């Protein structure tokens, strides 16, 4: 870095005016937005979502979804360019609105074109979703010629609104967007909120906000939510510092008292969660918890040790089958019928053995090769469990049923609400292990191995032990997940342990933020809880996964809540820029120039 750091003489530089907003970019974005809107319509999303009302009876989800795209692309088109060195910061003006409108117009015209196409030709032989019903929805039931104009105008208006967002001050913008998002969230998660209010015996709130339990928002309800969140976000955006910053600034004793207090409050709330949320939501939370447990384990293997394991589901299966064989009276080979709790030590041992079995052949493998081999292992595990050959032990395709409930002392866990607590406990343990190991001798050895395996070895890290231990720790965490899963469902079948489970767990940690416990938790909530709450759209679940992955990799490759170091790693360029600016200050004045620059 020293070469570039010869400090320039501090001179007063006259700033050049900011370059105007690029209209060609708006055109490009408009066409991209058109493609996105046509895709959404042609895949049947609009038609499927149309009967679902967001605000009854004025805003149906299908059309809202379509025009939110126009809004989004208008917002992107109207975004002022980043301030470059030597230029004045760009100020937003009518040009931003215009760019948004232009993008929206082009997007709307694309949809209009699609509408004409659908009405003139019958394309249903190829595109089954391009039906007259779709034409009816897209055209608002108007004659085609009128409809095309209406679509173009509506889309341009949404685009212009998107562009106009940039004219607002940060506080207004964030308040408004936050409140609008809140309305949509409240409407989409109607099941969740319905259950929440019912659980709190606040049926009257449901009647006020929704057309019924699980129904759409009423107009009054939508307005009320919008208003409430406007007030909330306005206040939140107006504070000088966040609660987090204030807690950080406290003296140490007071800070730890606050943190302990907050932890206690969260624990108390979590204690009541399954009681209030009922079996449906609890079941989703239990499933998410089991995935989270696996994700935390895989996070150690992939995020810390850098060993891309694509057959992680095998360890989940080991846990589930070990518990099943040891506890179920239906276990074909031998059935000691011990309790689920007593099976856990055996599960641990079995997982450790499985971890060593998988790790041993891949000791000298790296990167892609390791990923392929582990992928093979995952499939081998599933096929063996499913095979006729091993059916006398694992029950083949019939699996093993009649697994007893988890019992701890006098407590029997049978309902999803009951299982929330043990799953949560295991997740806590896994999170603790993750934190504890990160700042330890082996944690550092794993990270060194991830960074550069041969150098790590030359610096004294025993690669064999490091790989084996990472696999074993990951395997044990996943196997606990499998064990809980088996006890909760009461039966295990080979087809459950599909490659999709491995992929989903991997996506959770990538999208959430590799190496970060809060990130992985959020990843599990977004990728497991949301799709389960929005089951009506399950047809499109993997489409949304795909879009989410692509957008995340382009815009935020480090994940939702990344670990600090990973964020830095993926943004080194910006960082070195920031470092440069920090050193030379805003006025070109050297503040703390490192010695080597002098």
């Amino acid at each position: 870095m020293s070469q570039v750091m010869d400090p320039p003489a501090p001179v007063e530089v006259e700033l050049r005016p900011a370059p105007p907003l690029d209209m060609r970019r708006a055109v490009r974005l408009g066409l991209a937005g058109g493609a996105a809107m046509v895709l959404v319509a042609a895949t049947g999303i609009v038609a499927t979502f149309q009967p679902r009302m967001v605000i009854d009876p004025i805003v149906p989800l299908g059309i809202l979804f379509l025009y939110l795209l126009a809004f989004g692309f208008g917002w992107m088109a109207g975004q002022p360019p980043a301030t470059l060195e030597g230029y004045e910061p760009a100020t937003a003006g009518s040009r931003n609105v215009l760019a948004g409108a232009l993008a929206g117009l082009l997007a709307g015209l694309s949809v209009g074109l699609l509408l004409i196409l659908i009405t003139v030709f019958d394309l249903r032989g190829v595109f089954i979703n391009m039906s007259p019903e779709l034409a009816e929805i897209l055209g608002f039931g108007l004659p085609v010629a009128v409809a095309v104009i209406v679509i173009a105008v509506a889309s341009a208006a949404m685009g212009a609104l998107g562009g106009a967002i940039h004219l607002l001050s940060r506080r207004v913008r964030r308040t408004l967007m936050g409140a609008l998002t809140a309305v949509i969230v409240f409407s989409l998660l109607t099941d969740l909120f319905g259950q929440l209010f019912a659980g709190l015996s606040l049926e009257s709130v449901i009647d006020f906000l929704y057309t019924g339990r699980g129904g759409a928002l009423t107009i009054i309800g939508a307005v009320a939510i919008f208003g409430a969140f406007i007030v909330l976000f306005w206040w939140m955006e107006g504070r000088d510092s966040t609660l987090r910053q204030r807690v950080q600034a406290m003296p140490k004793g007071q800070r730890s008292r606050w943190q302990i207090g907050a932890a206690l409050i969260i624990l108390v709330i979590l204690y009541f969660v399954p009681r209030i949320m009922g079996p449906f939501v609890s079941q989703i939370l239990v499933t998410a918890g089991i995935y989270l447990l696996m994700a935390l384990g895989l996070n150690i293997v992939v995020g810390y040790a850098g060993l891309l394991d694509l057959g992680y589901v095998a360890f989940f299966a080991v846990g589930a089958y070990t518990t099943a064989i040891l506890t179920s009276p239906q276990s074909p080979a031998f059935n000691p019928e011990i309790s689920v709790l007593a099976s856990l030590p055996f599960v641990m041992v079995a997982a450790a053995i499985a971890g060593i079995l998988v790790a041993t052949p891949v000791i000298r493998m790296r990167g892609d090769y390791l990923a392929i081999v582990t992928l093979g292992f995952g499939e081998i595990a599933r096929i063996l469990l499913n095979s006729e050959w091993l059916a006398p032990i694992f029950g083949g395709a019939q699996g093993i049923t009649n697994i007893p409930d988890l019992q701890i002392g006098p407590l029997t866990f049978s309902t999803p609400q009951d299982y929330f607590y043990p799953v949560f406990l295991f997740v806590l343990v896994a999170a603790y292990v993750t934190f504890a190991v990160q700042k330890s001798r082996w944690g550092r050895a794993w990270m060194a191995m991830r960074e550069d395996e041969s150098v790590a070895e030359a610096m004294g890290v025993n690669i064999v032990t490091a790989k084996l231990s990472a696999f074993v720790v990951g395997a044990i965490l996943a196997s606990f997940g499998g064990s809980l899963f088996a006890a909760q469902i009461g039966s295990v079948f080979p087809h459950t342990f599909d490659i999709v489970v491995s992929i989903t767990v991997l996506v959770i940690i990538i999208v959430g933020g590799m190496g970060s416990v809060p990130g992985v938790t959020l990843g599990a909530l977004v990728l497991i809880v949301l799709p389960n709450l929005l089951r009506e759209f399950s047809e499109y679940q993997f489409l949304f996964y795909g879009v989410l992955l692509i957008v995340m990799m382009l815009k935020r490759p480090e994940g939702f809540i990344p670990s600090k170091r990973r964020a830095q790693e993926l943004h080194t360029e910006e960082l070195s820029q920031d470092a440069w600016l920090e050193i030379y200050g805003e006025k070109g004045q050297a503040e703390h120039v490192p010695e080597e620059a002098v």
Partner: protein
Amino acid sequence: MPLLEIQSLNKAFGGLRAINGLELHVDEGEVVSVIGPNGAGKTTFFNLVTGMETPDEGSIVFDGQNVVGLRPNQILKLGMARTFQNVRLFPAMTVLENVMVGQHSRTKAGLFGAIFKTPSQRREEAEIEERAKEVLSFFGTRLAGYRHDQLSMVLSYANRRRLEIARAMATGPRLLLLDEPTAGMNPRETIELTELIGRLRSERGYTIVLIEHDMQVVRNVSDRVVVLDHGVKLTEGTYDEVSTNEKVIEAYLGRPAELGA
């Protein structure tokens, strides 16, 4: 008895004999420079000594023990640590963590200790950190204070080289192998590093073998210079002896035209 003794060492990559019958010894407390034109086999020599590559033939005896066939981490534990020609730090780890990893083979806490926070693990962890800071303090203010928690990838080039030396020092070696420690540094930094190599011996008591292209550095730090060419030791001796040796001049500059015919 020399600290490092190498006898009839051979290593071939396909048809290329990278190291050819090399004999070399390094005594305790010496600073030995290995020089030679590009492709002379200097880095291969380091790779063989540190176990990153296995020799075809020959023996490498460190402190009375033959290290041929041992893994790099076992060799490091015996007391030989190296740096790399193209700096190879752990980029996404902090400065302090890089140095802490260096102590891996000298410490023993396991995963059990890390998870249950046993008193011995906590004590050891505190010691590792303290020792890492102590090693970094050897470089004055260069790698001190706020630098401890910076990721090593944001360091300047010269600081990366220093950190690599710090990481090697943290492994508790008796012999340091430095692969072109001044490559890519400016004259000021080179002078500073030359001084530093001197201090590594006088203050820390390391025996040092370094590969170096900068003849100023070689002259200023070495007790003895070994010249390699095409995997063969051309000669060895003090800097003055070696720099006037005809074979060495020939290897670097080529054979004069009238003799080459």
